[in-house]
């Protein structure tokens, strides 16, 4: 079309145009062809132009004969220039396309890095990475993980579903040697798919499988770049999980130590008292006065109650140890209700003037597990009662400390040494000098505080005594809740 247009145009203006102008016109047509239709079409256009110029415009016209040797030179020059220009256009186009590809790839890699950075779960990360690589390559893509038990690999994810076939032999070789397999690589270049390892990891690493791989080096490099990002993110998530596991194991160990310490003291002491009292009553009832018998029975009841409480605490610790935060039921709770419920539990066995509440009316709701929090507060009251003295009541309450809700128990006892801090609880428990059970109770409060992400404060009060407080994280405004 362009040649016809050039010929028509040149024919129309042939009277006014010289040979040079006509040649330029055709050269323009060749460049346009090269730009729009590609290199091969441009070569054909150049040959066509060569013949057209010869036929239509070189004397003698309308034949392929060339009378003048100079015209030959001009025609050959035209052909050469046409081919060179077409090549240059082609190269320019290639460079532009490569630059555009590089920009697109870089943009995609940046987006991929951002997407992966937001993920903290191994499964989600692999799934997202697989989906993104499939998007980038437009080929069926899967990720295979070494099986936990037994040999071999299994596909953890694939996009689109059911399109990836996993070759166990290829996956194993690739993972063991830490090298890629497939077109464009040094290993198994005839293989129909790319299989690439997730970098060098201890043991067998996961592998990426991309079907229908081509040997084009740019694509292979691009794919390796994406996989490197995914592998780095995967390593980060695995490290995060390992750190969490280590923290959990440390927590469990600390709970186990608390349990052992308490069983030896908190259970054995009351059991000794109960066994002593019951055997005394069984063996020597006749020799004992009614008052003495009554005292022994009362002590048995008190020790049994204490034992019940200690058992409850030990069960709690065991439960928290085995389930961690999974069994914590966080819900909106009213500090007023928790304080009220705990106080009413103690009312049956304490005198009214021994305890009072202090909760401001407008205290906000908190996110907490009501049962665990009641238990924590109950333990603090138990401890306070065991050391409290004087005429002032123990105060159980809630208050706002810099927009954060604090639940506290204040006593006038000497239960804690000077400058005692929450971090010293385990040491305190081993010391066992301040009444039975304080260490275990406090350990549980500490665990419950941690499960609520609350701070645990032990503060000396002015004028003697202690204020033990759980300070919760700031909550959204209560007004938003209605």
């Amino acid at each position, binding site marked *: 079309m362009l040649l016809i247009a050039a010929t028509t145009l040149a024919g129309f203006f042939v009277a006014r145009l010289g040979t040079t102008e006509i040649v330029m016109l055709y050269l323009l047509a060749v460049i346009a062809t090269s730009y729009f239709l590609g290199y091969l079409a441009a070569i054909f256009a150049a040959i066509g132009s060569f013949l057209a110029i010869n036929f239509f415009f070189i004397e003698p016209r309308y034949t392929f004969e060339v009378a003048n040797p100079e015209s030959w030179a001009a025609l050959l020059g035209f052909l050469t220039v046409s081919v060179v220009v077409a090549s240059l256009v082609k190269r320019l186009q290639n460079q532009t396309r490569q630059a555009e590809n590089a920009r697109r790839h870089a943009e995609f890699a940046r987006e991929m890095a951002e997407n992966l950075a937001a993920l903290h779960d191994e499964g989600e990360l692999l799934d997202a990475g697989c989906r993104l690589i499939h998007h980038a390559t437009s080929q069926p893509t899967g990720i295979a993980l070494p099986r936990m038990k037994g040999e071999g690999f299994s596909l953890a994810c694939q996009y689109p579903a059911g399109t990836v076939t996993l070759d166990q032999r290829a996956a194993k070789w690739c993972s063991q040697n830490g090298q890629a397999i497939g077109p464009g690589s040094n290993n198994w270049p005839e293989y129909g798919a790319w299989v690439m390892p997730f970098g060098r990891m201890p043991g067998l690493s996961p592998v990426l499988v991309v079907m229908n791989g081509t040997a084009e080096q740019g694509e292979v490099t691009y794919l390796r770049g994406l996989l490197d990002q995914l592998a780095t993110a995967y390593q980060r998530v695995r490290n995060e999980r390992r750190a969490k596991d280590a923290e959990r194991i440390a927590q469990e160990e600390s709970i186990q130590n608390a349990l052992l310490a308490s069983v030896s003291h908190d259970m054995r002491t009351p059991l000794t008292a109960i066994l002593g009292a019951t055997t005394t009553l069984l063996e020597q009832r006749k020799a004992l006065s009614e008052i003495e018998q009554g005292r022994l029975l009362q002590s048995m009841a008190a020790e049994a109650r204490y034992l019940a409480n200690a058992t409850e605490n030990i069960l709690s610790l065991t439960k928290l140890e085995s389930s961690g935060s999974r069994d914590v039921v966080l*819900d909106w709770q009213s500090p007023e209700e928790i304080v009220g419920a705990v106080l009413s539990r103690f009312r049956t066995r304490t005198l009214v003037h021994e305890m009072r509440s202090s909760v401001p009316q407008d205290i906000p709701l908190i996110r907490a597990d009501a049962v665990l929090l009641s238990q924590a507060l109950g333990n603090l009251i138990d401890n306070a009662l065991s050391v409290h003295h004087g005429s002032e009541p123990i105060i159980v309450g809630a208050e706002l400390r810099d927009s954060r809700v604090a639940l506290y128990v204040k006593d006038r006892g000497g239960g804690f040494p000077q400058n005692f801090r929450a971090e010293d609880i385990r040491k305190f428990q081993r010391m066992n000098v301040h009444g039975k059970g304080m260490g275990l109770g406090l350990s549980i409060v500490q665990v419950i505080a941690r499960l609520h992400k609350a701070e645990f404060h032990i503060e000396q009060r002015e004028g003697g005594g202690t204020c033990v407080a759980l300070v919760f994280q700031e909550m959204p405004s209560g007004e938003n*809740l209605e």
Partner: protein
Amino acid sequence: MKILSERPSILVVEDDREISRFISSSLSAAGYLPYVAANLVDARKLFWEVRPELAILDLGMPDGDGKDWIAELRQRSDVPVLVLSARQSEKEKVACLDCGADDYLAKPFGVEEMLARVRTALRRAAMMSLRDHVYDVSGLRIDLAAGTVTLNGKLVKLTPIEYKLLMMLAQHPGKVITYRQLLTSVWGAEYLDETHYLRIHMGRLRAKLEAVPAEPRFLLTDPGIGYRIAAS
């Protein structure tokens, strides 16, 4: 045929002999007539023979789940059921209350606590037989028929939601009403997760009815389970 006796009869369903022995001894000493079943098969049989005024049920029976028996019983009888449960299992307590139990007692428990629960449950059962009873405890008077609430003789103004909440509790003095039951009946089943509504409105009710809201005399909280209004 109901066995006639002046002493209120109580069916104790408990498989542990030591525990059922001390429960029945203390019930006898307190003037009740206890009948003991060591499994659910015996319990079913004995229940319809004795027609007790109250049943005390341990959930962990060797031949089945106590909860199923409560649900089965509720289809034919309103007899109050007091459940004995482990202290840790709040979910189980809620499940029992939701399927028709009247109250629960956490193991281990003292006799005085058990007898107090028994008395409350029996009193409530007697009250339930009078339609539209009046709750009148320590100066708080809730007239369910007239729909009025007075505190020490003074009329208390309540919002419709506070009123509904209070009526729901006052219809069953001493009985724990679970969060689920309150949310469903006051707001509707689609509000089951909106427990903060309950906390906020119960807080306002306490502010209106209690002298010291953090040490309530009437509106008591069972953490993680529900609310109850004091029976005495």
